[in-house]
């Protein structure tokens, strides 16, 4: 019986060409009983490999293929948990010294041999390398070293993969092994399941070597013999030495299945001596309840006890205590936070101040969050102020120790754009073509959808592509779709372990130097580690910034006591004026708000859930709106549905409602109902859905519900289960959404300044936010070296841009500009500034000049830029730094510089500089430059278009903002975008026929101004949009005219 003991999956990045599924499938097809996984310097795949292998009756063997410090590689297999831990330690050490090229030293090997089997001798081992170079003395030395440290756990591998020199190498290795009484095994250094996948492997190697398929490279694979050969094929290759096949089975018999998974590794929370964890949790919950509720009545107690019982029975008491402690720390330090997700279904989480949603008051179902039937780890996500989230993380590291806390990994895979660029390069396609294709592909397109995008998308259709190599590109993109490409740090995932982490995972440094586990969030939890999500939300930072600005101006606001029924705020939301508002600022949301006319927090909760692909495709939005406005009366096919669905006017909107329906109609327990919901939302086939449906109907009938009624109700649930939003999550977001709307309404200058400071965030870029705040009557002041601060700030109707808005500005420089001015007075000249604020490099000075920061002081930007080198030279000499080597013509006295008469930049040029440096035109708007020509061509301004009646024809021009193609209920392509001119913004809809004819211009990065001809549509509530009949690139019209 033969076992493949040297196998690479796609977790050997840019090398292994097979998914784990493919490797297991091949092993099963060949009748294998065991299989090893030994990726290059990685154990990332071991847990999913183990789970998959066991499911198909294959014994998984965990190992690694290590790159050695001096030369060659060494394969290690773990015999037991100690062996696995040693692999984790070896990898940790290797990556610590060089995360991009990890290598294992002899010293490290020597200290970490227990529980390991070592296999040397494969083609890329150090042994083989020395033998091929005719340096047998070094090979013998290496053998002696391995013999000394691994003793009876050392094997010599021979692979016969038809490479030049294999014949003699094979014989020499066998002779060497026999001379030293070492067992020999057959391996094949598998890099792909089937030989047909060789091309993928070769392509990945070309990418890794940064070469192309047309170029020769000594490290490119020679042939397609590194496939997972069957036992018959291997036996034929080693017919002269059958013992080396039998040895593989003997090794497999020596290996336990590692790592051991399933046991929870969550730490116990340190409680006072007189209390158990359960007692402490109970105490904290009831203390919190007294603060949260006016009265702790029987109903509340029943709810809390119900939750505590489930939490205790599932063994997550310590988990809640850990999260409570983290939230407590944040509160103590004044760090703004909000729990989100299904945790808001928990009254316990509310009483512990983890979330801010009253689950009892909203009648939210705890079982959506946790249930005995599901028996899974709870998932509590908390959003923190992005500026201070790292303080919270550091607290966790300090409290639990660095050996017990680590960040979680995330893998980027080959997607459409990256796949096109990298594959195209390796296939020697011209860079310009790859770039053009990549830029035009939709952002999140999967690699296997590239080819279909070419025929589907008008912006790709008209380009001439070279067909043969392009077809190869598409084929390869399809094959490597989903292959891991890079690893990075998960945004907020943190793992705390009871046992030292190295027993479970290596610790490797990310690009930013943070130690991460190479397991992603799913694998981490399968390993028994419990993940917390300590996320950072820039909206939290923006809220905090707003409050600090108000405090500085002696207008403090208690955010937690904001009136949740402020009519002015709801009126603003109902007008769809929600640019800048958390969760409500997209065009779709703004249209919804104008139709909905929200008048309570409940309406906002529903809004968050409504504008999502599911309800839109499922045609839920219009019925909801009609019923909400009393234009239609909700009907309930069964009276038990009314109390569940009345808050959403008869429409199933929330996952909790699906659970409640299953409970009320079919008498499921809440836990069973949540299981049903989850199975329905992940069902892979129609037959599976039918089976679930049958169970539901049978139970409903048994509960006294007529069969036809039960069948109809199931059909509703079947449609909703896959898209329903978690109500608790919507409620958590809705509170923040409303409060940011309040800030936008009542203190727009401060609020918009804060969201500009927190960029990038939200839906719109800075210039749209500034246009919006200007529309609200706030006056915007551009940069002024003698007035502005490092950051944008607002002050009762005025917004002052900050130096950090300048592209390329460093924070310490921006702060220094402000600090020096405050401490020693206003700057009297540009030279004065340069002298008093040293260390501002030339690029930043140029940017400040171009942004207009010195306009009030010096007035002439061109003159300043022209004289800048001379001024810098003057300062260097003044400070004794010696002379720069510059053109003597520029080297003139300062007084002469300032006196020279040089005409400043034109308005056009100044505006272009401001857009370039600030992303915004302070002097005016880009459209100012074209208005007279556009007017001559009968183009209206957006203000004029907005005043037209419903159905009127309009022609407008402007800049395209955020074109996107969301899924629609009809399945047809509809593009939405906003069009901005100097007076305002209008939302535009482009239906499929127009999109196919004219839509290419929307996604062309070089489009510039576009002209839209169409019809005005005025919706209820005052929202105005345009339906496009035609789109033109303005520059093409100008070129034609010229």
């Amino acid at each position, binding site marked *: 019986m033969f076992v493949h003991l040297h196998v690479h999956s796609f977790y050997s990045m840019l090398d292994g060409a097979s998914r784990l599924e493919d490797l297991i499938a091949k092993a099963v097809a060949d009748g294998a009983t065991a299989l090893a996984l030994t990726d290059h310097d990685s154990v990332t795949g071991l847990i999913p490999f183990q789970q998959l292998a066991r499911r198909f009756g294959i014994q998984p063997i965990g190992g690694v293929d290590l790159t050695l410090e001096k030369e060659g590689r060494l394969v290690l297999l773990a015999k037991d948990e100690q062996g696995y831990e040693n692999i984790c330690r070896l990898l940790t050490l290797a990556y610590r010294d060089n995360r991009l090229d990890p290598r294992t030293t002899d010293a490290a090997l020597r200290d970490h041999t227990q529980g390991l089997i070592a296999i040397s001798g494969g083609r890329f081992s150090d042994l083989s390398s020395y033998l091929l170079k005719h340096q047998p003395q070094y090979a013998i030395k290496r053998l002696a070293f391995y013999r000394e440290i691994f003793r009876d756990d050392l094997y010599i591998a021979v692979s016969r993969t*038809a490479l030049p020199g*294999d014949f003699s190498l094979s014989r020499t290795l066998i002779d060497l092994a026999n001379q030293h009484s070492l067992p020999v095994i057959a391996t094949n250094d598998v890099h792909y399941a089937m030989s047909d996948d060789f091309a993928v492997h070769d392509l990945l190697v070309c990418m890794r070597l940064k070469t192309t*398929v*047309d170029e020769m490279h000594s490290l490119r*694979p020679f042939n397609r013999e590194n496939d997972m050969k069957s036992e018959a094929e291997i036996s034929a290759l080693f017919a002269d030495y059958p013992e080396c096949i039998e040895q593989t089975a003997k090794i497999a018999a020596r290996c336990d299945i590692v790592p051991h998974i399933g046991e929870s590794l969550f730490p116990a929370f340190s409680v006072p001596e007189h209390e158990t964890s359960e007692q402490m949790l109970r105490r904290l919950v009831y203390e919190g309840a007294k603060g949260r509720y006016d009265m702790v009545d029987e109903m509340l107690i029943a709810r809390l006890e119900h939750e505590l019982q489930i939490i205790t029975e599932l063994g997550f008491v310590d988990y809640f205590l850990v999260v409570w402690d983290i939230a407590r720390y944040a509160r103590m330090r004044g760090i703004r936070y909000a729990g989100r997700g299904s945790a808001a279904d928990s009254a316990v989480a509310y009483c512990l101040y983890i979330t801010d949603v009253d689950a009892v008051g909203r009648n939210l179902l705890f079982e959506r969050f946790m249930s005995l039937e599901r028996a899974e780890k709870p998932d509590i996500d908390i959003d923190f102020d992005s500026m201070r989230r790292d303080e919270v993380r550091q607290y966790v590291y300090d409290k639990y120790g660095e050996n017990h806390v680590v960040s979680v990994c995330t893998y980027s895979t080959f997607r459409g754009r990256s796949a096109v660029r990298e594959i195209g390069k390796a296939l020697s396609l011209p860079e310009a073509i790859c770039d053009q294709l990549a830029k035009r592909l939709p952002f999140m397109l999967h690699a296997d959808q590239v080819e279909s995008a070419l025929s589907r998308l008008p912006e790709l259709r008209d380009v001439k592509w070279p067909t043969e190599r392009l077809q190869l590109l598409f084929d390869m993109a399809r094959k490597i779709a989903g292959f891991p490409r890079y690893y990075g740090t998960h945004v907020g995932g943190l793992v705390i372990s009871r046992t030292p982490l190295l027993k479970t995972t290596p610790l490797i440094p990310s690009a930013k130097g943070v130690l991460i586990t190479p397991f992603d969030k799913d694998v981490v939890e399968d390993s028994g580690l419990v993940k917390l999500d300590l996320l950072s939300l820039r909206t939290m930072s923006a809220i905090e910034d707003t409050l600090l600005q108000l405090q500085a101006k002696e207008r403090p606001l208690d955010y937690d006591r904001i009136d949740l029924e402020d009519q002015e705020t709801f009126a603003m939301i109902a007008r769809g004026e929600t640019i800048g508002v958390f969760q409500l600022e997209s065009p779709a949301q703004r249209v919804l708000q104008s139709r909905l006319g929200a008048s309570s927090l409940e309406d906002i909760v529903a809004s968050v859930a409504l504008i999502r692909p599911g309800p839109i495709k499922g045609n839920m939005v219009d019925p909801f709106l009609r019923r909400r406005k009393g234009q239609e009366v909700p009907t309930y096919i069964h009276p038990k549905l009314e109390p569940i669905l009345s808050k959403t006017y008869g429409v199933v909107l929330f996952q909790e409602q699906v659970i409640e329906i299953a409970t009320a109609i079919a008498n499921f327990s809440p836990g069973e109902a949540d299981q049903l919901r989850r199975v329905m939302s992940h069902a892979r086939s129609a037959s599976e859905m039918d089976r679930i449906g049958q169970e539901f109907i049978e139970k409903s009938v048994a509960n006294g519900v007529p069969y036809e009624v039960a069948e109809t109700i199931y059909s509703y649930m079947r449609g909703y289960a896959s898209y329903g939003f978690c109500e608790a999550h919507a409620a958590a977001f809705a509170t923040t959404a409303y409060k940011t709307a309040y800030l936008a309404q009542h203190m727009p200058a401060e609020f918009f300044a804060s969201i500009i400071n927190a960029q990038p965030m939200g839906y719109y870029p800075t210039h749209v936010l500034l246009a919006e705040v200007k529309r609200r009557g706030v006056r915007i002041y551009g940069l002024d070296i003698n007035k502005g601060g490092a950051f944008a700030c607002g002050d009762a109707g005025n917004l002052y841009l900050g130096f950090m808005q300048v592209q390329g500005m460093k924070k310490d420089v921006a702060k220094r500009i402000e600090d020096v001015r405050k401490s020693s007075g206003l700057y009297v000249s540009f030279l004065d500034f340069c002298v008093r604020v040293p260390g501002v490099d030339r690029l930043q000075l140029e940017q400040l000049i171009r942004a207009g920061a010195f306009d009030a002081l010096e007035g002439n930007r061109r003159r300043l830029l022209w004289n800048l080198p001379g001024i810098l030279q003057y300062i260097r000499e003044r400070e004794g730094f010696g002379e720069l080597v510059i053109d003597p013509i520029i080297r003139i006295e300062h007084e002469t510089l300032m006196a020279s008469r040089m005409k400043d930049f034109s308005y056009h040029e100044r505006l272009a500089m401001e857009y370039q440096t600030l992303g915004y035109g302070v002097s005016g708007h880009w459209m100012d430059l074209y208005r007279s020509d556009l007017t001559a061509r009968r183009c209206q301004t957006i203000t004029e278009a907005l005043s037209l009646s419903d159905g009127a024809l309009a022609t407008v021009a402007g800049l395209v903002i955020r074109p996107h193609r969301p899924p629609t209920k009809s399945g047809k392509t509809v593009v939405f975008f906003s069009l901005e001119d100097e007076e305002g913004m209008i939302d535009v809809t482009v239906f499929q026929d127009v999109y196919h004819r004219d839509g290419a211009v929307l996604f062309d990065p070089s489009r510039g101004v576009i002209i839209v001809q169409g019809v005005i549509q005025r919706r209820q509530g005052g929202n105005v949009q345009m339906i496009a009949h035609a789109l033109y690139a303005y520059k093409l019209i100008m070129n034609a005219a010229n």
Partner: protein
Amino acid sequence: MTRILQQKIDVETDGKRPRAFLFRDQQYFIVEILDFWIEADAWWKSFEDHGDREMFRVLTDQEGIFELEHDLGDDVWQLYKVWD
């Protein structure tokens, strides 16, 4: 010293391995296969190329060393190289 010839030849095999070949009207019997390897085809030029190639470095009864190439796609043999 080696010379690259790349000449088509007739080869007698045992089904898998070459046993003898005819070159310039002379029969050469293979005494030993000194080395064997396979070179993958240029898969990215699939419309041009033929298939993988087996390469045999052989010692003949006349003590000559030759490299024989067997194109697996076309099943064509050629004398690739001779070692002088």
